[in-house]
């Protein structure tokens, strides 16, 4: 039981004077025994260690006091209390000092609040999206499986059905594997029956889907394997929200039937309320592929996920898949040559490119925080210089350096705590704004539904606040308590500018701020230039005055091609007579819609001269589509109403196809076949390229087919899901009711989707970039403001400090110009150094942004010259006021004042 005491004594040996150690240990021993008697050994031991530690700290703290002349009683008593008393005193004193200088305090707290607030807000987003586990049990074992197709530069492409079934059959690394439709061929379903018709978002997934993500239905059951087959697949799982909305949360809904697109489905279960999936589906239905679709290897439209088996590392699963993939490539060289299965964690697949963007934002915001720190540090340094006399006196009467540093650090921490608290408030307030800024394409990112400042984010904020307090406080505190500064008592009266060290420190901080700002400005400018380049990219059509809406015909009543054609012809006829509408067209896939259905292209009289299959994007379009969209016809003719099933089959290709497949000849009149149907189509025209996968992606080969001619290579749902494009004469809003009326006049059971303006649609496609550049630019502007404020503060301070020196110079005949040059030389050298370091840093750091840039390289000289110039001008403005003040110094006044 006494085992503690030798250790306690050793602890004391370093802290407590020799003649007191034994008696104090004896006293502790005595009380220890008494406490052990009353409260047990555990409590007594804890008490002993706590007291020993407190005593050691107290004595250690007071050791200096033994050596120095006795301070005034008030001080002595304060020091006598425990360390905590001392700390409390420091805090009270610090708060008092800060309240005495409200201007300084407000600026410092505001700068920090901006930095900490922005960091907290962005961190909460980054944390939610990138770092928190997905809302599935053992989410780290859920993998996204993809097909690597180097020829199309796709490393994680969607999967062909036949490949998926082979993987599922042959691999042993997964406890469950499932596929779901990458883009549901018919978009949304029309839910009819009791109540208003409603469009619901389906997720078509194979039977093991819920097993892979580890979700069990809250009510009812999941899918059975046999429900993957056509004919037995009319079962549905409802989302919790839909169940509550349509069935008033009635448990007996399970077992009832609902009609989607006019077909009856049996409700077999309800998903739990916390079920989350990126596409936010309202219903989950089995993905049932018919015998034909199951054998497709060239049509890629499945997303595949798998749960790793217990103890199977991802690398081993990838290896196994690749072995299977190599075998398939040998067996089916036409479709699978060079294709390999690939695998990555599901989160990486969901987050994709957004990761870089979020990390760049986090980096930018960290820079703002660093600049804010440097800014507050320069303020503190300037203040420390003003307090040199106080410090010198305190040192002279025996204050220990450690004590002074503690006092000043406490003040910094008080500032940091106030800044942190304000910052967290700012962050909480800005989160809702940030949420509103997030583009629609972010809806599929994990964690954004529950964006909040929670304990985890708060912990980070508090840590960041305290760390910043130390970061900006430690240098000024050390500088201020520097014993070498003691001579400043004399220096000050000579009108010096503080010690050389303090001056260098200040200059160093300003240079650091300038350099950090330049990096941010360079990054922001690159993003702005990229975004501007993107806005100037022509999408290949005329988006002004176009509106679009999606119409999906139910397969039950529109299973036959003539009925589809008749429906759209009737709608077009109704719309054509409206004066507000110029032209109407329809397409199965809109530009910028990034659809991945490519089919094999066979060219008559040509043998494949490359091992890779020749492919095009097939698009079924109506007569008049090109004119409506404003896609230019380059050669040949457009489709007319005469291109029907009974006439000769035709196709129009885009420029990219013509360039790639007929580089030196005229494609007009050539015959091609698309997909597996061996029907030859004659090329009758070439139209301009449109940007199909985004403004930043070059056009891919595409072939347009007339709506009036049957096209079945992509399955039967393809031509029923159509986007209407309408060119208006005026306001888009005015045509919405016209479209609704026209569709409902033709078939009351067919609802239409949202009517949107085409330019909005284009805006959405670049919204992530817009968010990125808006935020990073905002951070860069804040950085610029903080930096110029810092530069102004330092220069103003230097000028004030050198009033006497400048006065003497002027008295001795220095001209105003010479004085101005003196001040500007100082500011100029700091600025140039800051810019030089900043450019070097930016060249190093912006490389990580390469994937986010468009039409500009990360080391674009014009951008760097521009931001350097901008920073130099802002720096010049910041020093303009102090330097003009310097030139107006009256030598007489300056000399008299000192």
């Amino acid at each position: 039981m006494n085992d503690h005491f030798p250790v306690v004594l050793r602890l004391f040996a370093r802290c407590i004077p020799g003649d007191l150690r034994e008696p104090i240990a004896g006293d502790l021993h005595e009380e220890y025994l008494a406490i052990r008697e009353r409260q047990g050994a555990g409590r007594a031991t804890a008490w002993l260690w706590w007291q020993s530690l407190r005593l050691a700290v107290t004595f250690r703290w007071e050791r200096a006091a033994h050596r120095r002349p006795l301070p005034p009683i008030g001080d002595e008593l304060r020091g006598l209390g425990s360390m905590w008393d001392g700390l409390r005193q420091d805090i009270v004193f610090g708060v008092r000092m800060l309240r005495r200088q409200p201007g300084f305090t407000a600026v410092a707290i505001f700068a920090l609040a901006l930095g900490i607030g922005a960091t907290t807000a962005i961190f909460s987003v980054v944390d939610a999206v990138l770092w928190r586990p997905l809302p599935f049990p053992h989410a780290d074992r859920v993998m996204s499986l993809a097909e690597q197709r180097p020829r199309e530069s796709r490393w994680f492409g969607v999967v062909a059905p036949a490949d998926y079934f082979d993987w599922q059959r042959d691999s042993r690394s997964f406890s469950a594997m499932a596929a779901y439709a990458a883009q549901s061929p018919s978009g949304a379903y029309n839910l009819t029956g009791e109540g208003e018709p409603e469009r619901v978002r389906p997720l078509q997934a194979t039977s093991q889907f819920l097993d892979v993500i580890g979700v069990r239905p809250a009510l009812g059951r999941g899918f059975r394997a046999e429900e993957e087959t056509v004919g037995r697949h009319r079962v549905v799982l409802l989302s919790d929200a839909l169940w509550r909305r349509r069935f008033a949360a009635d448990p007996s809904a399970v077992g009832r039937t609902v009609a989607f697109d006019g077909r009856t489905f049996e409700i077999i279960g309800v998903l739990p309320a916390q079920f989350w999936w990126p596409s936010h589906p309202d219903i989950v239905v089995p993905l049932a592929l018919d015998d034909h679709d199951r054998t497709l290897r060239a049509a890629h439209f499945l997303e595949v996920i798998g749960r790793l088996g217990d103890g199977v590392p991802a690398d081993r699963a990838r290896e196994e898949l690749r072995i299977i993939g190599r075998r398939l490539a040998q067996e089916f060289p036409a479709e699978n040559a060079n294709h390999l299965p690939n695998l990555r964690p599901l989160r990486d697949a969901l987050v994709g490119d957004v990761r870089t963007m979020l990390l760049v934002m986090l980096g930018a915001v960290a820079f703002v925080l660093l600049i804010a720190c440097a800014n507050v540090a320069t303020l503190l340094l300037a203040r420390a210089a003003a307090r040199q006399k106080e410090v010198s006196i305190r040192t002279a009467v025996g204050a220990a350096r450690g004590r002074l540093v503690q006092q000043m650090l406490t003040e910094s921490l008080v500032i940091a705590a106030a800044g942190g608290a304000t910052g967290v408030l700012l962050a909480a307030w800005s989160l809702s704004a940030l949420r509103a800024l997030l583009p629609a394409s972010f809806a599929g990112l994990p964690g954004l539904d529950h964006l909040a400042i929670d304990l985890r984010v708060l912990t980070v904020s508090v840590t960041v606040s305290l760390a910043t307090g130390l970061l900006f406080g430690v240098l000024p505190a050390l500088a201020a308590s520097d014993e070498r500064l003691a001579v400043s008592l004399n220096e000050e009266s000579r009108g010096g500018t503080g010690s050389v060290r303090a001056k260098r420190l200040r200059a160093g901080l300003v240079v650091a701020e300038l350099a950090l700002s330049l990096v941010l400005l360079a990054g922001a400018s690159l993003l702005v230039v990229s975004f501007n380049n993107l806005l100037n990219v022509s999408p290949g059509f005329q988006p002004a005055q176009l509106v679009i809406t999606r119409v999906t015909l139910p397969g039950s009543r529109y299973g036959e091609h003539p009925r589809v054609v008749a429906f759209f012809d009737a709608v077009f006829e109704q719309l054509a007579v409206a004066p507000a509408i110029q032209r109407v067209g329809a397409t199965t896939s809109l530009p910028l819609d990034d659809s991945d259905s490519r089919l094999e292209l066979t060219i008559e009289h040509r043998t494949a001269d490359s091992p890779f299959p020749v492919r095009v994007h097939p698009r079924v379009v109506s007569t008049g589509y090109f004119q409506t969209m404003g896609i230019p016809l380059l050669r040949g003719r457009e489709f007319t109403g005469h291109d029907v099933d009974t006439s000769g089959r035709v196709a129009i290709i885009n420029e990219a196809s013509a360039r790639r497949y007929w580089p030196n000849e005229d494609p007009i009149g050539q015959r091609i076949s698309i997909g597996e149907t061996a029907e030859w189509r004659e090329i009758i025209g070439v139209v301009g390229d449109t940007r199909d996968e985004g403004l930043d992606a070059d056009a891919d080969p595409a072939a347009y087919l007339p709506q009036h001619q049957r096209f079945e290579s992509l399955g039967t749902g393809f031509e029923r899901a159509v986007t209407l494009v309408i060119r208006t004469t005026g306001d888009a809003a005015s045509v919405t009711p016209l479209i609704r009326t026209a569709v409902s006049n033709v078939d009351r059971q067919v609802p239409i989707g949202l009517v949107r303006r085409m330019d909005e649609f284009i805006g959405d496609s670049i919204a992530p970039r817009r968010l990125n550049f808006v935020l990073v630019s905002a951070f860069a502007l804040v950085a610029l403001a903080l930096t110029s404020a810092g530069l102004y503060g330092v220069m103003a301070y230097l000028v004030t400090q050198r009033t006497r020196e400048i006065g003497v110079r002027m008295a001795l005949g220095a001209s105003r110009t010479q004085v101005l040059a003196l001040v500007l030389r100082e500011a100029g050298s700091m600025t140039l150094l800051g810019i030089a370091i900043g450019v070097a840093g930016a060249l190093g750091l912006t490389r990580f942004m390469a994937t986010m840039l468009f039409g500009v390289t990360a080391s674009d000289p014009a951008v760097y010259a521009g931001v350097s110039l901008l920073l130099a001008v802002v720096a010049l403005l910041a020093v303009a006021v102090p330097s003009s003040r310097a030139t107006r110094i009256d030598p007489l006044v300056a000399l008299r004042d000192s």
Partner: protein
Amino acid sequence: MAAADVVNLGEFEHMVLLAIMRLGEDAYAVPVRDEIARCTGRDVSRGSIYITLDRLETKGYLKSRLADPTPERGGRAKRYYALRPRAVDALKESRRALVALWSGLEAVLAQP
């Protein structure tokens, strides 16, 4: 001399001296702390007791002696403290000064 001492005695030092006076022969750190707590209701830290005792000894108000080690203290000695005449003078002087300052103020205190 005595008047100057009063100025140099802090409130806490004052309390420590009085506690030692009250304890008489039995004054070592543990009972001193208990006595202060008992009389004033203030729970003071052990560190400040030790440092104040040490300081008062250095200033010449206290003398101390080491007693024989006892087993219930793990064989460690106690350090007993006793007042020097200077401390008694200082306490008397401070009491006199305080009483003088207080005299006639009872009526003021009695007011609500």
